[in-house]
């Protein structure tokens, strides 16, 4: 019998051993859940929201945006002041004294090094286009591209003549060439002068973006790996892992256990460290949407950043019911223009009020393939703007927002979410008008849908998009007499098909990166890498170009408004459906620091636990909007 039990005992011993070796860490001051783990802590490689959120906590750019102001004003960060030349093309930044988390000072060269990285063809930064706003960026990229091709030719296509010394020489030359070609100069360690290719009114907004964050050259330089066969430079994947990673932001990364937990701790060398009200932040990964809500319910988590549980519409409905119970108070506070989070804070405690829906800086829309030919070679009736307008006017967006999404997202006729940009008012777009839609179809030669092709609606498998497709298909069938099919594909396949324009109509989503209409409009420019619609309008491109060179802000905005009007009222390469909402779960009475601004950016170093005696303990709120047009939930 002992023979039977011995293996069992061994098993138990093994389990105990594994557990002893793997102790959990103590609870952090603030804990929030990321829907999925961060992809990278390399600021020049980031393109995911959860990455950007952490980037803003562990790195700091020259300026940062004030997320508690309506215009997202650029405020001093590593640069304590800056001058802008009259032609809006030269920016001079003066750096303050601040430190990397290893104690070394942040130097002007750290910024130049990071920006050079982003401009390397061998590196593959997703936001290369941002850095190319700097004079000479494009040329530098091309120069390096050509040299790499030469290098590869010289080491042989069969890759048999590695040239270690040659790779090192090319790299040294590249660094020299960067100083020579690109409009970034560092006259001393505390000054950076940036020359732009053309006046870019939103440049400061971009400088607050992760791609423009600095890297500690002294440290990161050590992880450069030069490939003796191709001459390309890469960075050893381990450099972003603590303890190797050094940060210049309010926090540094204390530990990163993949798909488990990221821990941030206050950076003792950060210039404004006394303003921080928390010392540690823990960011566990909880991928299951139900478990993340349950984790919040147990009190282990302070903030859930994406509420995706299947019952989220019911959570929103419960909050509405709670508001109805306090209708008069809510109305009075809304009339004062109070921040929606502040309204929740002032209402009596109730778990129902912990769910928050804020309109975000993104729009969900429906793409049309505007190519002259369909993927199968037939002529494409969708190339006719009248047909696209008709299809757009027959879609009942309310039914989608209120019947399918059910979380109070506002429907939109424009690509750019209203109220998200202070000096820009997007056009209204086309109204839901089935009568007019039928007329347009008849005009285009398809009265009652006669002789029209079967339209396919392509959606990705996840995210409940199939229901939206069904709703749109139903509208097209009923109002215009068009027959439809729906194709559901895996996300990667879906993205690939869009890229190759191998579709007729498809679901899409875009969110802005910086505070300017071009952040949305550029995706419709002819030949843009994100122009999945294959839409090409010389008029639209000309308007964007003209706006590019316009220095008067008011005139520029008018041009962009005209460009968007062309998109959403005449040409309709896409049907704007609804503004994407950010859905959070947190108790407004417990902490402050979350902004309800539609741009949806949150700065973790502004988090302050209320009533803990650390920090000011005063709620941060978005001041009432200057003009009277309500947003918020």
């Amino acid at each position, binding site marked *: *019998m002992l*023979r*039977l039990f011995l293996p069992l005992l061994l*098993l*138990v011993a*093994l*389990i105990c051993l*594994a*557990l002893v070796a*793997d*102790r*959990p860490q103590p609870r952090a001051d603030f804990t929030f*859940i990321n829907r999925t*783990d*961060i992809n*990278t*802590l390399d600021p020049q490689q980031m*393109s995911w929201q959860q990455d950007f959120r952490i980037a803003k906590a562990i790195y700091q750019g020259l300026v940062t945006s004030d997320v508690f102001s309506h215009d997202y004003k650029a405020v001093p960060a590593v640069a304590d002041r800056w001058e802008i030349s009259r032609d809006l093309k030269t920016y001079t930044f003066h750096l303050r004294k601040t430190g990397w988390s290893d104690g070394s000072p942040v130097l002007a060269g750290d910024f130049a090094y990071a920006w050079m990285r982003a401009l390397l*063809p061998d590196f*593959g*930064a*997703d*936001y*290369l286009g941002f850095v190319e706003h700097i004079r000479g960026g494009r040329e530098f990229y091309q120069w390096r591209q050509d040299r790499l091709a030469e290098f590869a030719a010289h080491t042989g296509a069969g890759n048999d003549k590695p040239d*270690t010394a040659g790779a*090192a020489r090319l790299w040294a030359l590249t660094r020299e060439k960067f100083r020579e070609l690109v409009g970034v100069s560092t006259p001393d360690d505390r000054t950076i002068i940036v020359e732009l290719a053309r006046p870019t009114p939103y440049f400061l907004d971009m400088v607050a973006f992760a791609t423009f964050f600095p890297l500690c050259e002294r440290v990161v330089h*050590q992880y450069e*790996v*030069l490939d*003796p066969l*191709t001459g*390309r430079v*890469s960075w*050893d*994947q*381990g450099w972003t*892992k603590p303890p190797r990673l050094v940060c210049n932001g309010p926090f540094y990364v204390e530990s990163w256990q*993949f*798909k*488990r*937990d990221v821990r941030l701790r206050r950076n003792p060398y950060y210039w404004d460290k006394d303003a921080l009200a928390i010392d540690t932040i823990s960011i566990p*990964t*909880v*991928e299951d949407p*139900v*478990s993340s809500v*349950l*984790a919040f319910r*147990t009190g*282990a*988590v302070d903030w859930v950043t994406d509420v995706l549980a299947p019952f989220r519409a019911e959570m929103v409905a419960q909050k509405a019911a709670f508001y109805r119970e306090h209708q008069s108070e809510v109305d009075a506070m809304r009339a004062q223009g109070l921040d929606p989070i502040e309204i929740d804070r002032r209402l009596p405690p109730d778990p129902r009020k912990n769910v928050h829906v804020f309109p975000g800086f993104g729009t969900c829309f429906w793409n049309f393939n505007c190519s002259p030919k369909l993927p199968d070679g037939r002529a494409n009736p969708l190339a006719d703007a009248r047909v696209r307008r008709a299809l757009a006017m027959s879609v009942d967006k309310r039914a989608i927002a209120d019947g399918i999404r059910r979380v109070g997202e506002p429907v939109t006729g424009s690509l750019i979410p209203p109220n998200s940009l202070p000096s820009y008012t997007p056009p209204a777009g086309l109204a839901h008008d089935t009568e007019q839609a039928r007329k347009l179809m008849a005009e285009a030669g398809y009265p009652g849908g006669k002789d029209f092709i079967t339209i396919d609606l392509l959606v990705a498998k996840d995210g409940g998009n199939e229901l939206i497709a069904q709703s749109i298909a139903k509208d097209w069938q009923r109002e215009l007499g068009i027959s439809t099919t729906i194709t559901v594909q*895996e*996300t*990667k*396949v879906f*993205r*690939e098909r869009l*890229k190759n324009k191998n579709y007729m109509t498809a679901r899409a*989503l875009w969110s802005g990166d910086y505070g300017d209409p071009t952040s949305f409009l550029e995706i419709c420019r002819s030949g843009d890498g*994100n122009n999945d619609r294959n839409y090409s309008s010389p008029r639209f491109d000309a308007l964007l170009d003209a706006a590019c060179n316009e220095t008067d802000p008011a005139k520029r905005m008018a041009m962009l408004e005209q460009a968007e009007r062309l998109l959403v009222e005449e040409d309709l390469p896409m049907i704007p459906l609804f503004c994407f909402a950010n859905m959070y779960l947190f108790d407004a009475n417990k902490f402050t620091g979350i902004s309800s601004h539609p741009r949806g950016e949150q700065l973790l170093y502004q988090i302050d636990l209320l009533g803990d005696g650390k920090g000011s303990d005063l709620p941060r709120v978005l001041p009432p909007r200057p003009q009277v047009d309500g947003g918020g939930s």
Partner: protein
Amino acid sequence: MTGLVVRRLLQLPIILGVIYTLTLVLAWRIPGNPLENPDGRRPQPEVVAAMQRQYNLDSFWSFYWSYLDSASGVRYLRDKVTGRAAEQDNAALAAGRAPPTRSIFDLGPSLQYRDQRVNDIIAGGLPVSMTLGAAAIFIALILGVLAGVIGAVRPNSTADLSTLGIALVGISLPTFVIGAALLLIFPVLLGWGRIPSWGRPVDLLLPAFTLSLPFAAYIARLTRMGMIEQLHADYIRTARAKGVSETGILFRHALKNAFLPVLSYLGPAAAFAMTGSFVVERVFVVPGIGQHFVNAVQNKDLFLIIAIVLIYATMLIVFNLIVDVLYRWIDPRIV
């Protein structure tokens, strides 16, 4: 016995090679581009081309051989022997850089998580999944064997039928239903246990219990069948005639023989449990490798797919070997 172990271990690389080839052929054919982000921005075409070259994604055969080269440890050895590793390290050091990280079995980078090497992902998640799986197998053994014995003592009695019924529920109820229900009852309503939390023995209880249920149910049925058969055997009658107590008969004589089918089931079961369960790990927020079985395929993360499949295969082979060794040790008649 030693012959068996040596023979099996020698077979291991050949089997893994075949599995690698098959997996790569299938994974390569998954439609979609691994370098595309869902809803993310599209990198510029030259960037994608550069990345494809970097990861050898532009040609099946160059990927096939280069991965085989680095994952099998051949490249590591070659670099060491030819002195290329030392040369690279010296060049890096001379330029003031850190020498590159090297692993003997280099499973490559993750295409989805750009900061992670597959080796690190496995090293972080596999111990967690193995602990959870071991605990689940342990619970399953206790529950299953007990239920099986109870059922076998009085076949078709109320006790037997109810254990069989529970076993049926254990097999057929999906784990995400049981898991969510347990989460709702214990941490949320009663305040026992935390999510997300991993590393305390208590954290193991709910997920291990949930994961054990299907295994326990199967073990219970195997034990019951085996016990009923054994209890009718001649040697049991002899033992009864000799006056051996009923507990002695059950546990010392009958169970020992009835357990052998359970033991052979334990090999694949342990491999299955210890490589992690997608659903249980997801619901209970356990940081194991189970999630990668599904996510890696969806992301077309080639390096991770192959690594996960190879690990599962290795575990399956190793656990079957352990079971065979135990078999011979428990029952020396088997040679």
